[in-house]
């Protein structure tokens, strides 16, 4: 584990990605260069109403400028406050925290499954894979959401040269239906290749990816989300049940777990 840093940072850039999605770039954060895809930062909100930090997976970093980008959708009290932050506002950041994704072998084809607001750590993963020499054409990025407006940063993903497969519940973009349908179809067609699954999204989706991995004997990793009072492993509040019995802390035993390990509830 890299020693986490706790620092005040400034919002240096804010982008409205529409439909309540926002991107915030925070800097300077001296821990930025050590953040790996799948890891998260724990953010203290400038609010007297909210006492605990909120965890956000990192969407990208700029190690030179010591920038950390998070992308989120305004959903609850915490994200509501974050969504109102402006350039120049200060935020206290603790991180990097958690176990990151393991990069796939360059010969392996990465099948990435992103559901809704679960896409940022996977976009970061794809970006870093390419930076490390992975052929973008060997990255199949399945991205699903309720409707077209729920799929954000599409031009950014397209620019990466990866194979983007969109799906929406209402059919307003890409294939109609849940993201898992096209994923299974793809896996079935390519079972003779070396594949690696990666997933982040709603629990139902994660459970489905977990089941696909086990069904077709494809290894991979899932990034989980949980309410985390501490984020560093001391409160034991964020646990998930394991298939082998007992519990694991999402914050420091995860948030990235191997397929087949966690008993995903939904």
């Amino acid at each position, binding site marked *: *584990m890299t*020693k*986490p840093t*706790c620092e005040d940072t400034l919002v240096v850039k804010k982008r409205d990605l529409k439909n309540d999605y926002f991107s915030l770039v925070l800097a300077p954060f001296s821990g930025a260069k050590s953040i790996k895809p799948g890891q998260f930062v724990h953010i*203290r909100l400038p609010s007297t*109403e*909210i*006492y*605990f*930090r909120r965890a956000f997976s990192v969407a990208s970093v700029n190690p030179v400028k010591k920038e950390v980008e998070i992308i989120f959708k305004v959903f609850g009290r915490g994200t509501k406050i974050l969504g109102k932050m402006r350039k120049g506002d200060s935020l206290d950041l*603790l991180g990097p925290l958690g176990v990151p994704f393991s990069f796939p072998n360059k010969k392996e084809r990465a099948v990435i499954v992103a559901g809704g607001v679960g896409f940022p750590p996977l976009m970061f993963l794809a970006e870093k894979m390419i930076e490390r020499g992975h052929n973008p054409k060997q990255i199949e990025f399945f991205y699903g959401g309720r409707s077209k407006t729920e799929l954000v940063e599409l031009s950014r993903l397209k620019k990466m040269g990866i194979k983007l497969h969109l799906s929406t519940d209402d059919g307003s973009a890409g294939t109609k239906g849940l993201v898992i349908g096209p994923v299974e179809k793809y896996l079935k067609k390519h079972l003779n290749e070396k594949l690696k699954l990666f997933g982040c999204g709603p629990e139902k989706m994660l459970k489905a990816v977990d089941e696909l991995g086990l069904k077709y004997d494809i290894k991979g990793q899932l990034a989980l989300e*949980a*309410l985390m*009072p*501490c*984020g*560093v*492993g*001391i*409160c*034991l*509040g*964020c*646990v*998930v*049940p394991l298939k082998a*019995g*007992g*519990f694991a802390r999402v914050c*420091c035993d995860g948030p990235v777990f191997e397929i087949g390990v966690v008993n995903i509830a939904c």
Partner: protein
Amino acid sequence: MPVDLKCKIAGVEFANPIMTASGCAGYGEELAQIYPLSNLGALVTKSISLKVRPGYPPPRTVETPGGLLNAIGLANVGIDRFLNEKVPFLEQQKTKVIVNVAGSTIDEYVEVCSRLNDCSCADMIELNISCPNVNEGGIEFGTSPKLTEKTVAAARKVFKRPIIAKLAPNVTSIVEIAKAAEQGGADALSIINSVIGTAVDIDSWKPLLANINGGLTGPAIKPIALAMVSGVYRKCKLPIIGIGGITDYKDVIEYLLYGATAVQVGTALFVDPSAPLKIVKGLKKYLKEKKLKSVTELIGKVRR
């Protein structure tokens, strides 16, 4: 002139009066990744029971205004694994170690305490007779003066170093329980454990904790805890370790003025793992400003 933060409880000297509260710092490993534990007055471990306890299923925590409701279920590795896996690490740390002990029967308390008596790493033990979440985790001992005395006396027989009794706020008279603990042979009191509470989802109509009830901690409970520290200080001679909602050095000073000799920081560690370091810094500055030589000069000095 340098200020002195040292304090003493039952003959054990602490570098400063800031300890971690049980259940809020694990066994110290995670915090030690962030800063040396020598910055703490003492590390108080998670409750150790005779057998390993996996704890309750999630959801285990709910954020409430100014606080946290938790029902972790005394998840811990049990005494065997504690001695084998955690003690070697704790022995390397340059801080005092207080091992918190929970049990479902007096025999279990005795067994764990006796094993800890042979473990020199445990400078003191803290008897958890007040966990609100686990029926067999202490609360039945800590809500009856008779059982409090009996449990403490039984532990006293097998553990030769100082014993702290950690008291529950959910009692008719905490002073009575404190006196019973003193009678049983306790050397100090930790006041208070978490306050019983619950919360419910108004859409699903389901409780927000799997265990339904939980223990409330955090700034919301500080006034409750302060009143209890104050009440016990006036009626009971044992040194008090104040617990409940301590976030910064100002909170610590309030506790000391009302009679606490030391304090434990709990929920604040979840927001800022480095809170104890900031508190120590703040305390030093305060003592200098007030021209006090030692932090002990504040104990019980409230002007009534």
